[in-house]
C-alpha cells in the first residue's frame, strides 16, 4: 500500500474574504436573476429598476451601446432589428441545428457565417455570438449585485438546464468569463431548485423536480437524505418551453390576419412586419398569462394600415392548443422514472419550477403523471436563482444553513466515442454521478504512425451520426513504433460542471501525448479572451469608475436641485451667513466634480447635503402650506427630486 504524506505545507487554504461575495445566477431563456445568501436565507437582488426579474433581452441603442432587460424590451417593438431575445436557444449550437428555430424566432444570422463557425447574430449592423449576448445579460446582473454590495463581484454560480449538453455548458461558462465572472460551478436548474426547497424542509425521500421554463424543459429525480441531494436520473428537452406556446399563438394570429383581414406581412416591408409580429407576440404572452387565472382573454392588436385584429381565446381553446406542446414533457418524465427505477407511487414530493408551470393544464398533467399534488410554495421564477445562491455558499465554505448539504448531480447524456463502422461506444452512461471518468486505450494501425484521431460524442443513439458531436481530436506525437505497439491511455473526465476534460499518455514511453481538442461547436480560448467585457483584473477599477460616474450624477442632481431651491421662497428665509456657507460648499462640490477623486466628490456631496438641510426643511414647510392653500404638490415647484437619498428628494414627503 502506498502512503501519501502531506506535501501541502505551503499551500494553506486561503480564507474567503468577507467582501468576496459569490452570487447565484439564473441565466434564463426569458428572464434572468441574481441572488445571494443573506445570513441564512437566499434572497434575490433587484436591478436598478427595482425589479427582481431581468428580461433576457438585449438591444443596441442609437449610439450602438447595449441596453439590457426592460429597457431593451421596448426596442423589440420599436427597433426589432436591433434587439434579440431567447438567445439561450442558440447557446452551444451550430447553424445546422437551428433551422427549426429560425422559422419561429426572429434571429438574424450574420451573412458571412462559415460552416462550423460559432453563430453570430446581427444587432443593427454589428454581430455578436450567443455567449457575448448572454455575457451582456450576466454583466447587467453583476452590476446589480455590485451596486447592492458596494463592491466588486467576480465569482458566480450559474445555472443551466440539466439536459444541456457539453457544448451548451461550455458556451455558458464562456459567457461568464466574457462578463468578467469566474464561474465556480454550473448547477443544473432543477437541482438548484431542490436546494432552495431543501433548505427549509430538511427531510428524506424521493423528489421529482418538473421544470418547464421559457425555452427548456427538465425533469430530475433526486434522493434526499441527511443533507445529501443525490440526483438519480434526469431527462428533458432543451428546446421546449413557454416560447413554443407563444409561437403557436403567434402563428394562429398571423393566419387569422392573413385570412380574415387579407393582410399579408410578407408583402410589407420587413421592418413593419417585424414590428407587428413583436406587437402580436407581446399581446399573446399577456393573453397566455391571463388565461392562467381567467376563463378567457382578448387579443386586440393594432395593425399597419389602421386595421385592428381582435380575437377572444377561451381557456378551453387554449388548453386544446397547447396540449401537444405540454405532452412532449411526458416522455422524458417516464424515462427519468424508469432510469431511477421508480414507479410514480414511490415519489414522495413533486416540485414545480419555471414560469410555464403556472399554467393550470401543466399542473394537471404533472398531478396525473406523478399522482400527487405538486409543491408550489416558492416562486417558480425565483427558486432556481435562490438555489444557485445556496450552492454558492456551499462552494464558499458553507454556513450554518448549508451545513451538511451536498449536491451529487449526474451527467444527462451518455458520453461515447466513435468506433469502426460509425458506431458509438458508450464509455460513460447517462445518469452517472459526476465527476465521472472513463479510460480508453488506443494503438496504431500503421508502422511509425504518430497521430490517432478520436471523435467524442454525446447522446443515446447507436450510430455516431445520430449523436451529438462534441469534439474531434488527434493524439499527436506518438513515438515511432511498429503498428499495434504503442499503448495510448486516454482519460475522459466529466467534471462537476458536466464539462468534459481529456488527457492522454503513451504508456510504453510514458510520454504525455499532446491533445488539441477542437470542439465541434464552441469558441476557442483565444476567442473568449478577446471578447472579455470587463477584464478580470479590471473588476476593481471598473467598479471605481462606475462609482465615480454615479457620484457625479448624484452631484449634478443636487446642484440642480439647489438651483431650483434658490428660486423658492424658502431661500429668502435663510440668513446671509447660511447662504454664504451653501455657496461655498456648492463651489467646492462643483470643483471636485471636475476631478476624478470619488472620495472627494462623496465628501462634498455629503457636506452640501448637510449644509442644505435647513433649506430643505423650509422648502418642505412651504410646500405643505402651499398644499394646504389648495395647490397640489406638483404645482408647488419642488423640482424633479433626485433618485438618490437626499433631504430635498420628493420621497421625503411621502
Amino acid at each position, binding site marked *: 500500500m502506498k502512503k*501519501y504524506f502531506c506535501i501541502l505545507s505551503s499551500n494553506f487554504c486561503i480564507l474567503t474574504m468577507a467582501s468576496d461575495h459569490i452570487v447565484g445566477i439564473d441565466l434564463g431563456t426569458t428572464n434572468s436573476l441574481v441572488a445571494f445568501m443573506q445570513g441564512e436565507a437566499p434572497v434575490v437582488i433587484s436591478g436598478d429598476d427595482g425589479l427582481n426579474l431581468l428580461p433576457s433581452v438585449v438591444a443596441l441603442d442609437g449610439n450602438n451601446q447595449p441596453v439590457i432587460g426592460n429597457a431593451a424590451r421596448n426596442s423589440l417593438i420599436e427597433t426589432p432589428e436591433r434587439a434579440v431575445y431567447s438567445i439561450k436557444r442558440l447557446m452551444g449550437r451550430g447553424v445546422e441545428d437551428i433551422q427549426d428555430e429560425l422559422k419561429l424566432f426572429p434571429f438574424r444570422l450574420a451573412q458571412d457565417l462559415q460552416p462550423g463557425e460559432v453563430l453570430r447574430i446581427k444587432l443593427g449592423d454589428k454581430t455578436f455570438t450567443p455567449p457575448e449576448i448572454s455575457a451582456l445579460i450576466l454583466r447587467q446582473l453583476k452590476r446589480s449585485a455590485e451596486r447592492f454590495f458596494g463592491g466588486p463581484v467576480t465569482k458566480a454560480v450559474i445555472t443551466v438546464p440539466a439536459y444541456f449538453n457539453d457544448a451548451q455548458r461550455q458556451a455558458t461558462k464562456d459567457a461568464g468569463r466574457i462578463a468578467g465572472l469566474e464561474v465556480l460551478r454550473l448547477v443544473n436548474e432543477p437541482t438548484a431548485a431542490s436546494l432552495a426547497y431543501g433548505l427549509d424542509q430538511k427531510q428524506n425521500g424521493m423528489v421529482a423536480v418538473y421544470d418547464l421554463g421559457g425555452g427548456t424543459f427538465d425533469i430530475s429525480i433526486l434522493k434526499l437524505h441527511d443533507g445529501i441531494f443525490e440526483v438519480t436520473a434526469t431527462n428533458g428537452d432543451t428546446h421546449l418551453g413557454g416560447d413554443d406556446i407563444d409561437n403557436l399563438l403567434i402563428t394562429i394570429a398571423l393566419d387569422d390576419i392573413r385570412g380574415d383581414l387579407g393582410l399579408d406581412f410578407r408583402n410589407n416591408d420587413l421592418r413593419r412586419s417585424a414590428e407587428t409580429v413583436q406587437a402580436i407576440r407581446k399581446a399573446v404572452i399577456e393573453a397566455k398569462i391571463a388565461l392562467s387565472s381567467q376563463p378567457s382573454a382578448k387579443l386586440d392588436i393594432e395593425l399597419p394600415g389602421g386595421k385592428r385584429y381582435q380575437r377572444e381565446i377561451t381557456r378551453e381553446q387554449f388548453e386544446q392548443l397547447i396540449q401537444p406542446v405540454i405532452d412532449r414533457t411526458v416522455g422524458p418524465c417516464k424515462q427519468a422514472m424508469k432510469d431511477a427505477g421508480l414507479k410514480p407511487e414511490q415519489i414522495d414530493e413533486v416540485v414545480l419550477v419555471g414560469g410555464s408551470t403556472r399554467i393550470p393544464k401543466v399542473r394537471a398533467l404533472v398531478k396525473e403523471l406523478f399522482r400527487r399534488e405538486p409543491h408550489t410554495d416558492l416562486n417558480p421564477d425565483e427558486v432556481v436563482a435562490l438555489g444557485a445562491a445556496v450552492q454558492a455558499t456551499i462552494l*464558499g465554505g458553507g454556513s450554518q444553513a448549508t451545513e451538511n448539504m*451536498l449536491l451529487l448531480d449526474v451527467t444527462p447524456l451518455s458520453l461515447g466515442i466513435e468506433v469502426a463502422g460509425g458506431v458509438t461506444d458508450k464509455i460513460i452512461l447517462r445518469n452517472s454521478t459526476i465527476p*465521472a471518468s472513463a479510460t480508453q486505450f488506443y494503438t496504431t494501425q500503421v508502422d511509425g504512425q504518430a497521430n490517432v484521431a478520436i471523435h467524442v460524442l454525446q447522446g443515446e443513439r447507436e450510430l455516431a451520426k445520430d449523436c451529438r458531436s462534441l469534439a474531434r481530436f488527434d493524439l499527436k506525437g506518438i513515438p515511432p513504433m511498429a503498428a499495434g505497439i504503442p499503448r495510448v491511455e486516454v482519460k475522459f473526465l466529466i467534471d462537476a460542471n458536466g464539462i468534459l476534460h481529456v488527457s492522454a499518455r503513451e504508456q510504453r514511453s510514458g510520454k504525455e501525448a499532446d491533445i488539441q481538442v477542437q470542439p465541434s461547436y464552441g469558441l476557442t480560448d483565444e476567442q473568449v479572451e478577446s471578447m472579455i467585457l470587463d477584464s478580470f483584473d479590471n473588476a476593481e477599477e471598473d467598479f471605481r469608475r462606475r462609482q465615480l460616474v454615479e457620484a457625479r450624477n448624484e452631484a449634478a442632481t443636487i446642484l440642480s436641485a439647489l438651483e431650483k431651491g434658490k428660486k423658492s421662497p424658502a431661500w429668502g428665509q435663510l440668513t446671509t451667513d447660511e447662504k454664504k456657507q451653501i455657496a461655498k460648499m456648492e463651489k467646492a462640490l462643483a470643483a471636485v466634480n471636475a476631478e476624478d477623486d470619488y472620495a472627494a466628490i462623496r465628501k462634498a456631496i455629503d457636506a452640501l447635503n448637510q449644509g442644505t438641510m435647513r433649506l430643505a426643511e423650509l422648502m418642505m414647510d412651504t410646500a405643505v402650506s402651499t398644499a394646504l392653500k389648495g395647490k397640489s404638490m406638483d404645482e408647488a415647484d419642488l423640482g424633479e427630486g433626485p433618485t438618490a437619498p437626499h433631504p430635498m428628494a420628493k420621497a421625503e414627503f411621502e
Partner: protein
Amino acid sequence: MRAAHFCGSCGKVQPPAPVDYFTFFGLPPKLNLDVAALEKDFYVLSRRLHPDLNATAGSKEQQWSLEQSSMLNDAYRTLRDPIKRTEYLLHLEGVALEEQSKTATEQARATGAIKKQIVPPDLLEEVFELNMELEELRMNRKTGEDDSALVAEIGKQKLVLETKHEALLDELETHWKDWDDLIDRSQAGRAASAEELAQVTGKMVDVLNRRNYIRNLVRDVNAALEE
C-alpha cells in the same frame, strides 16, 4: 485496507492512489458485498472528497479532489451493481468478455459482418423459433396484415426470455460464493491455484455471455415490436 484518501496529519485530500475499486473502499476482491454499507461509505467519502467541499482549497487540492471524487463515483457505480461488479472483477483477473458484448454486436450490425456469436446451446431451439416469428412479423407488417396473434406469441416468448435473464443472476450468485470462498482460503494462507480460479471465472464468463445474449435478443424483439 483502504487507500489513503487524506493526509494522516492534516486531513487534506491527497492525490488518488493507483488502486482498484475494491481497494479504494478498503474491500477485499469478493463478489458478495453489503451494498447498504457501501452506500453509507460512499456518502461519508463524498462529504470529504467532493469538489464542492474543496472549492476554497488550493488549486492542487482542487485537482486531487476532482480526481478522487470521480474515482469514488466510478468505483461506487461499478461495485453497487451486481453485473458491473462481476465484469469488473473479471477484468481485474484479465478475463475478456468481448465477443458477445453489446459493442461487438452493434459493430457487427453496423458493418454487416457476421457476428462472432455462439448461441448458447440451451437456447438454440427457442432462438430459432423466435427468429422465424420475427421474420414473419416483418413480412406481415410489409403487407399491412393484422398480426395481433403473432404479436401476442412473440410477447409471450419475450417474457420467457426475461425470466431466464433474471434466473441467470441467481446462477451467477452461486459462482460468487465459489469465488469468495477461494479468496477467503487464500487470505487464510492456502492460496488458490490458477486452475481453481480460472474454473470459477470461466463459469462466470459463461453466465454473463448467456445473459448478454438474451439481453440483446430481448432488445431485438422490442425493436421489432416497435417498428
